[in-house]
């Protein structure tokens, strides 16, 4: 599933970002600040994401990790700072803009479409690319059906990739938690994103499920070249699969580097890993 370049380019054009030759990273956030009713969630946070890497964001609860993702894909609008995507600058994203520009995400607390089957959930991830008009759909004449079939084939590819063939027709509500997480990932992958934001993809999973999920994330990154930004609490997972790590604490960036560097970083250990150890 190579990301559909022209779709994302077109998206960028539509979103009307300003070009910037200086910016090389695929995605870069520059001193983003965000606050809710006086509560500071993010304070001048900056980091970049390079094409094809797995970038982890870690930090204790309430460090502003989820808020960061929400800023990146436009659910929140930061008060200050910009988001640079493919060298174009945005003061804020709009969720569906972000989607059009190839940013997909999964949610910490499941946000599947409970009333729909696994297949439909994943097909919904294709909606972005489905263009036939109402009338054509209503009559289900040629183009509409052809389009439906083409995207069905793609969705089936995702289902096959995630090894959930046996549950194709089940309503997502009836699936065990671990599988629902997989479907959530599947819906995101169905968008053929160039950047995939994962909000605690392995939260609440048992060891086996975690291993599966990591496998899927890595091979998504590997086979489709999807760039991945993930929030994760399980340090084992983070250290295993991420190329570079950003550490947030109370809305500030307190560390940034390879897993090794992070593991040895004094400040990080005090602020976070220490906490984690206590917790563990």
């Amino acid at each position, binding site marked *: 599933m190579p990301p559909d370049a022209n779709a994302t380019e077109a998206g960028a054009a539509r979103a009307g970002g300003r070009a910037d030759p200086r910016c090389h990273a695929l995605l870069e956030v520059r001193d983003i600040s965000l*606050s809710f*009713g006086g509560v500071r969630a993010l304070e001048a946070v900056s980091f970049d994401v390079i094409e094809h890497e797995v970038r982890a964001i870690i930090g204790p609860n309430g460090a502003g990790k989820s808020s960061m993702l929400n800023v990146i894909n436009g*659910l929140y*609008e930061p*008060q200050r700072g910009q988001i640079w995507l493919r060298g174009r600058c945005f003061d804020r994203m709009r969720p569906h803009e972000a989607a059009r520009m190839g940013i997909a995400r999964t949610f910490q607390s499941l946000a599947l479409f409970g009333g729909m089957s696994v297949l439909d959930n994943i097909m919904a991830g294709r909606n972005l690319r489905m263009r036939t008009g109402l009338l054509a759909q209503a009559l289900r004449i040629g183009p509409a059906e052809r389009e439906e079939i083409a995207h069905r084939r793609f969705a089936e590819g995702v289902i096959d990739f995630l090894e959930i063939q046996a549950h194709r027709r089940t309503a997502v509500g009836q699936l065990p938690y671990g599988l629902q997480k997989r479907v959530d990932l599947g819906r995101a992958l169905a968008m053929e994103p160039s950047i995939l934001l994962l909000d605690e993809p392995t939260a609440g999973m048992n060891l086996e499920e975690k291993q599966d999920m990591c496998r899927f994330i890595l091979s998504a990154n590997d086979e489709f070249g999807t760039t991945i930004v993930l929030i994760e609490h399980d340090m084992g997972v983070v250290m295993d699969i991420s190329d570079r790590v950003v550490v947030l604490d109370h809305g500030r960036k307190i560390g940034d580097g390879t897993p090794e560097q992070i593991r040895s970083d004094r400040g990080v250990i005090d602020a976070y890993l220490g906490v984690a150890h206590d917790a563990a």
Partner: protein
Amino acid sequence: MPPDSEPLRARWPLIALAALLGAGLAAPLATGAAAPGFYLEVLLGGLMSGVLYSLVALGLVLIYKSSGVYNFAQGAMVLLAALATARLSEVMPLPAAIGGALLMMVGLAWLVERLVLRPLVNQSPIVVFMATLGILYFIEGFGQLVLGNDIYKVDLGLPKEPAIVAQRWFDGGILISREDLVAAGIAAALVLALALFFQRTATGRALRAVADDQQAAQAIGIPLGRIWFIVWSVAGFVALVAGLVWGSKLGVQFSLAEVALKALPVVILGGLTSVPGAIVGGLIIGVGEKMAEVFLAPALTSGLGVAGGGVENWFAYVLALLFLLVRPEGLFGERNIERV
């Protein structure tokens, strides 16, 4: 919580609303210069009927505050209470009749809590809302089946003959219905009582807690069931008062149930969670309707060649709708919030 600087609100609806209200008041003022008395009368008349809307709206707000349920059946409850009093008063002294009616409302509250709210706990608000639609139908049917569906009278012994005041300033003075004055008084008293109830009593505080956060309230061991029962009883009481006032003014009849339909825009305007909002909203709607009826309708007729009149049927809603676009949370309501 959404960030402070959420997408800039389109300001035009606000301006439009301001313009509309301005026109609504200014145009009459022009005429008012000629006959200020008449203008004031209309204004007062509006305020008075507004008070009655407020009475119904109060019940709505109570229930919404404590259970997040918009009770579409409030109007039916008003009708039921009034009917009960009217029919009972035929066979027993008024106070007893009122007591009986009150008992009935409490019984109703109990049934609703048992048969509707409890089974529907944790359902989406819209589902419960539709359920209250069901309750509305049920009560209407039941009330009229058991208590009859003619027009009945309740006589609270309110002074019927109007008073003429302020002759000193206006020739011919201004006509005021004493009845309405009393009604306004009652409304004021009721609001005061409720305010006290909420602020002072333990139950009241519990209610506020529930209103703020149901889960939390449950966690600290506030029995939701009991709370709802109480709230619906109180709402029933408010409905009774409203029913009596309206009943004595217009006679007890089916049309009372329609009042609820007016109460909806009222609370939207005032804010679903605010008692004062209910009052203010009621007054605005009341006045607005009267104004529209008196000044807008003729304008429409002359302007568009539309048979004016009946404007009050939709005015409240269109006003509320316009208002929604500017301030969905209403004048006094808290904004409801989404978290990702």
